[in-house]
């Protein structure tokens, strides 16, 4: 009697309990990984690689640019248009402004776009590039971009140089990147 094995009922109960436990644990784990992925996707806009990639594309497609000495804006004119609906590059001529917007202790980097090839319908829109950006400084081959030689819509612009040095200051890190764009 003392050596008897498990009864069929005990085995069935154990299997059912194990199945319920497995399902429960998997549910919790998948929920956690989904939340983590969601969190990561909202954070990808703030990852250093993402910020550099977005800026690299716009600077490479630009014909002319202007950078503020205060490190709070970068103006680009060129064919780096992004369709506001599909978010795919459409190659249209646009005016893109990267702006560091501060509000209280928060600061964020915004990308503003306006079509220049259709002044009757410029379709202005803005998108959040990254949170926690304190300044955006773009220099040409180690020097600050020269003072403007031409003015478009009241903005002073220079041709985009072949090499651009990018510095994005955040509270926890500073992103320094050398971009070859020509």
């Amino acid at each position, binding site marked *: 009697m003392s050596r008897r094995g498990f009864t069929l009922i005990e085995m069935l109960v154990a299997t059912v309990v194990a199945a319920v*436990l497995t399902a429960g644990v998997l549910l919790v784990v998948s929920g956690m990984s989904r939340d983590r992925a969601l969190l990561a996707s909202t954070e990808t806009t703030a990852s250093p690689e993402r910020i550099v990639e977005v800026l690299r594309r716009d600077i490479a497609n630009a014909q002319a640019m202007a950078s503020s000495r205060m490190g709070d804006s970068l103006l680009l004119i060129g064919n780096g248009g992004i369709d506001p609906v599909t978010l795919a590059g459409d190659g249209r001529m646009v005016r893109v402004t990267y702006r560091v917007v501060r509000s209280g202790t928060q600061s964020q980097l915004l990308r503003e776009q306006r079509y220049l090839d259709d002044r009757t319908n410029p379709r202005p829109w803005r998108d959040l590039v990254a949170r926690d950006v304190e300044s955006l400084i773009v220099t040409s081959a180690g020097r600050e971009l020269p003072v403007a030689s031409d003015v478009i819509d009241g903005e002073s612009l220079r041709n985009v140089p072949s090499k651009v040095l990018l510095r994005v200051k955040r509270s926890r890190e500073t992103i320094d990147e050398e971009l070859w764009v020509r």
Partner: protein
Amino acid sequence: MKRRARHHGYVLVLALGLLVLASTLLVGVGRAAVKHALAAKEAQDELQRRWAVETTRAVLLPSVEQMLARQETLRKQPAGTWSGKVKLGSVTLDCLAADEQAKVNVNLMLERGKVSDVQTQLRQALAGTGIAAKVRLRPAEISARAAGAPVTRPTTVAATQATTAPAQGSVVAAISGFGQMFDQLPPAQLIAARNSPGSLLTCWGGGAINVQRASPAALRLALGSRLTPGEIMRLIEARDALWAQQSSAASKPASTAPAATQNAPASPVEQLLAAARIDPQAVANAVMVGSRCHSLWIVAKDGRREWHYLSIADESGATNGRTFVW
């Protein structure tokens, strides 16, 4: 005794539960490791691709004219484009180099015609390619005029070209990219076929078309508003005859070069126009021989995605070179 037996049952349940927990944890650790490995591989691939593109561009773009000339010498016929593959390490790039002045300059067409008329001409020229309906010209400067706004040149480039561009074929760059010519046309379609828009149209360079290299279709489109179809045909025949003459002259010793060219007009353009019996005034600033603007398409693929890069080297002074990234 019954109590002990029941107790054994719960030990089994506990053991099963622990097994489930352990396996779930191991799966989680495994997935995280794979994710990190994939991210590292992706970063490595991206760096290799970017480096390969930069290297290829730096090497090939300044040499496009020599590559085209060499191809012409080998084939003994005009070559407006060169295509090839470049393999650097594990990265293979498809390259397409072209003489931009062997194509029709849309900006020059816009100087002579209305936007709607030029649009119609382009649609007719691209009929049968499946993308004629996507032609939609959006010249930056003309839009400003239409809106009644003060006319401002679209870029610094446009501002400088007025003083630096050569008199021959100087145009204002109202159109500065394919995105201003077509509605949402993927870059792959721009260079897909032989008669694709990328091989027929341009918006860079001085504006004049290189008659020595341009395709008959490009010559018909570029000069259609200035010359009759018969004159264009004569120009193409004269160009081909000149090619044949040059090829045979190149294969003979230098001393046997044709003496007939001794009294020929000075410039190659005048020589061609004279041979085709065309009044030079009719095509003033619209034709030239030689090129100072070249392009290089680089297409990188990894099986899942394609990256398209277009670089323009312009020595004509009309633009200071451009890069387009899709």
